[in-house]
């Protein structure tokens, strides 16, 4: 274990959604290279409290890369420089003494800022509410092994289901689109046999809810590069395919009714 010295931080401070924001400069004089990036911010916050100043507000919780609560644009990259890594798993061993680091909130029209580095990502919940589920009310499920799921299908569904809902894809996208998030959930559910009955209704509802909050996808691929769980952009292809089919399939259903 060794220590890094003089980490220079430039952090976005904003006291409320409608208040003006600005960058402020801070110095962390010493930090262990075993510390995580968020532990470095903890040290800064303890320093600020000791100076009778208000600590920097940032979202975080599990600190093991699974809950999706942490965010942050670190030097312009969602979750910072390490590939496939959420901010909470980024460690100071990635940096050198004297490093200058810029820290900003996730910025997107659909993620309004609450304070400092904290944003509101509730629009993701609205997308799930609109169709990101399989209707299976408690009590009536058949024996689990009656539903056979081929291993490659289960594995591919799991790859998509690994999404942690952090919003890095939206923050990284020049359009502020949520197609990777929505595509991941759609792919997970639409691949499985259990997801087939609602497949096209789900695709239409989720995509249209997504469109009411987020920008449009123009295939930049920034989302895939920023995703801490390395969700493949293939899920967006699945989303587009199922949405297109849904617009026909659902129209026919409506015509019959």
């Amino acid at each position: 274990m060794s220590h890094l010295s003089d980490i220079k931080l430039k952090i976005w401070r904003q006291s409320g959604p409608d208040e003006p924001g600005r960058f402020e400069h801070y110095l962390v004089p010493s930090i262990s290279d075993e510390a995580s990036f968020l532990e470095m911010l903890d040290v800064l916050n303890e320093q600020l409290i000791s100076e009778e100043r208000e600590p920097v507000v940032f979202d975080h919780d599990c600190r093991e890369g699974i809950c999706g609560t942490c965010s942050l644009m670190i030097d312009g990259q969602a979750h910072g420089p390490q590939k496939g890594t959420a901010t909470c798993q980024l460690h100071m061993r990635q940096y050198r003494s004297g490093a200058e680091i810029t820290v900003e909130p996730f910025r997107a029209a659909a993620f309004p800022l609450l304070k400092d580095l904290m944003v509101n990502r509730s629009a993701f919940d609205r997308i799930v509410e609109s169709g990101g589920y399989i209707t299976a009310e408690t009590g009536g499920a058949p024996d689990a092994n009656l539903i056979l799921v081929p291993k490659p299908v289960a594995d591919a569904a799991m790859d998509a289901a690994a999404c942690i809902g952090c919003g890095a894809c939206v923050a990284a996208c020049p359009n502020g689109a949520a197609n990777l998030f929505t595509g991941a959930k759609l792919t997970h559910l639409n691949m499985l046999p259990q997801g087939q009955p609602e497949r096209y209704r789900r695709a239409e509802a989720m995509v249209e809810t997504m469109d009411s909050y987020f920008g449009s996808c123009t295939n930049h691929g920034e989302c895939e590069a920023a995703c801490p769980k390395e969700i493949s952009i293939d899920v967006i292809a699945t989303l587009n395919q199922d949405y297109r089919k849904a617009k026909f399939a659902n129209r026919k259903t409506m015509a019959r009714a």
Partner: protein
Amino acid sequence: MTNAQIHDKLSSKSPDAAVPEMWETFKSDMKLVNPNNKRKFKIIVVGTGLAGASAAATLAELGYQVEAFTFHDSPRRAHSIAAQGGINGAKNYKGDGDSVHRLFYDTVKGGDFRARESNVHRLAENSVDIIDQMVAQGVPFAREYGGLLDNRSFGGAQVSRTFYARGQTGQQLLLGAYQQMERQVGLGNIKLWNRVELVDTVTIDGRCAGIVTRDLINGEVRSHSAHAVVLCTGGYGNVFFLSTNAMACNVTAAWRAHRNGAFFANPCYTQIHPTCIPQADETQSKLTLMSESLRNDGRVWVPKAVGDERAAADIPEDERDYYLERLYPSFGNLAPRDISSRAAKRAVDQGRGVGPLKNGVYLDFSDAIGRLGKDTVEERYGNLFQMYERIAGEDPYAVPMRIYPASHYTMGGLWVDYELMTTIPGLYAAGEANFSDHGANRLGASALMQGLSDGYFVLPYTIGNYLAPMLGKATPGVDHPEFKAAETAARQRFQGYLDIKGTRSPDHFHRELGHIIWDYCGMERTEQGLEKALSELPALYDEFKKDLRVTGNGESVNQTLEKAGRVDDFFQLGMLMCRDALERNESCGGHFRSEYQDDEGEAVRDDENFAHVAAWEWNGDPMSSIRNVEPLDFTATHLATRSYK
């Protein structure tokens, strides 16, 4: 019994039947609420982890009006999401001799005969339905090539009954329950409150009438009334400061309910998990669990020699001590958590620890990689290996992992009866927040099972039994003076933290508190140590009340202020934990009192004097709480010394 009285509120209300028939008997006899009347009842569910999300979803499906509360930005963030290894289900899909009875027996034995048989048997029965339910919802469990479900083994069991979704089982189960809940939000059957924290419960005329919350965005304190309230607010492992819990996990909801009359059971039953990444430096904010499932294929060892400085690869086979395989040949590396943790602590205390700080033991996969190939190991544990590499900065495919025990789960919690109701009528506790199913030690892959059993398959039945007689009766609204009084007290409490204007942060006090609890009420406890803790804690708590510094204000997001409230409650709980540990003059499960061990260092229970639940009653101060007991009867199992040799 020592210093204890049997309290008339502590009737478990287990049905009058043989243990295996109790749940069917209850369901046959319980009162029902007509489907059209369910909408007349409002139920508050606090917490949206496995227990909370599954309870909220199911209650809403049944037709009740549900309001769900989470202090997170989204219900999906709850800490159930971090569970890695799996969920038990007595399906016997492997044909290896599993059954409901065996899962029941393993859980009672794993809990060192300190759990209530009736609740545990119901849990084992429900385990089967949970797997069906989660598969129907689309949880992508691991599969065999033929499409059937795969299983793995977990500690304390000799069968393979654990279902898993890579190393992210908790995430996938929580997302399943969250999606069911969000569906009900979309349908308008659940009103969801996010970034809102419970700060008090309210009891009127002897019944729970609702809760008081604080909005974490703008500090607004507000009352919510309901016919019944369910707390699914998790455990209190963060009392140790360093634990595998998420940063925000806290005891506040359970503790506030306790202060209002809900008895708190067995607070000293805490689980120290054997496989966590050791602490690396002094700024560490939390510890990370490495799933117990890794012990299916990893071998735990330390050098035989004290102070061996060689790298793992340079230590020849005959100079390694695979101590779990040596001490517990029949369970080997899959010995239960409490036993494995103590064995690791002893190895490190003997000076045989490994790593730069000599504070870990090896979990070695080289045999497994040789036997199965790297690809298979990666398929089973890939995300765990990646997580380890990110945090420890070492490649576990090349060098053995280093692990050490850390606070992980708390078996103690709010006392509940068979219907999961606390000693306050109308107030329920489910999941880790209650005490009921794991006794003095929880087996791996059982927490997910319990959360979902309580939420999907227990509360939806038992709450109706309570509500049915209340049909047509008026319940107090939020303008009742009791609500107003609770709101005022909450505002004053939070303003109070801001007004102290001392010199030290909540985190400072939390670390100090954690040191005391870890040193004296951690893996090994002694009478002398606990008495020392009980003299140091009130003094430190007084300092907290005089010298706390919270900067900022109470009208916008203030994470320091949130933390202050949680640390306040942890202090009080910490004192109760130590008192409970001091009064329990025996060793059982996670509660190991050094005075009570045999020649080989194994726990010695005292069934004559301590085969009971200790349920503490608030009396104005944690140092003077009253210890009541619920005796435990064992009719479907027989009390036996727990051996894994």
